[in-house]
């Protein structure tokens, strides 16, 4: 499932509710669930950051997230995925993104979860605008160097 979240994102509640909803898919089959939770820091590029606005392109965001999940499912055998991304005004320690991958074996869950996050950061139309401690605002202009293979 893919979801855009406009208010507080509570990852553990979301996971619990989704697992109950999907018990026919998961129960008895799941050997591994890998969970990634991305949280807002209070610093970036050497500056204190006190808040942020996450803009997105409604419609394209969901479409591109669906492509990312489909690309992941073509590469790994997964039982299910849950991707939730926050938009709007956020503050340090707010959860910005949740990715959960359920699979039969752990290797698949780890790899597929990482792949979804890296693809999301480079392909899905979200943009961050930071509010610094002096009240000034700046767009984040670089997010990722792309997927880096672990050696």
């Amino acid at each position, binding site marked *: 499932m893919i979801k855009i979240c406009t208010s507080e994102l509570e990852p553990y509640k979301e996971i619990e509710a989704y697992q109950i909803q999907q018990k026919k898919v998961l129960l008895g089959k799941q050997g591994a669930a890998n969970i990634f939770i*991305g949280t807002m820091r209070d610093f970036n590029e050497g500056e204190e950051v006190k808040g942020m606005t*996450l*803009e*997105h*392109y409604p*419609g*394209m965001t969901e*479409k*591109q997230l669906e492509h990312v999940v489909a690309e992941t499912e073509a590469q790994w055998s997964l039982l299910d995925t849950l991707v939730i*991304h926050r938009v709007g005004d956020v503050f340090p320690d707010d959860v*910005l*993104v949740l990715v959960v991958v359920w699979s039969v074996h752990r290797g698949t869950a780890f790899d597929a979860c990482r792949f979804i*996050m890296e693809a*999301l*950061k*480079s*392909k*899905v*139309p*979200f*943009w*961050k*605008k930071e509010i610094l401690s002096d009240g000034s605002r700046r*767009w*984040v*202009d*670089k*997010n*990722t160097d792309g997927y880096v293979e672990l050696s």
Partner: protein
Amino acid sequence: MSIKVRYFASLKELIGQAGDDCEFVSGMTVLDVWQALLPEKAMPTNVLAAINMEYVSLDSILKDEDELAFFPPVTGG
């Protein structure tokens, strides 16, 4: 006969508006639309474009009633 054009994030601020309409001309490309609407603004080198919410290159050809978006590199996650 028009293309609906949308701008996002820092590009929206640079241009000073969230969108525009461009008269459709058969065979026009993504770059043609930018040049028709913003003749005095050079396109930043890192601009991304999407037609009907799918990524395209700047030489992609538009159809009438397409939605064309321009935006900077994405920074979600």
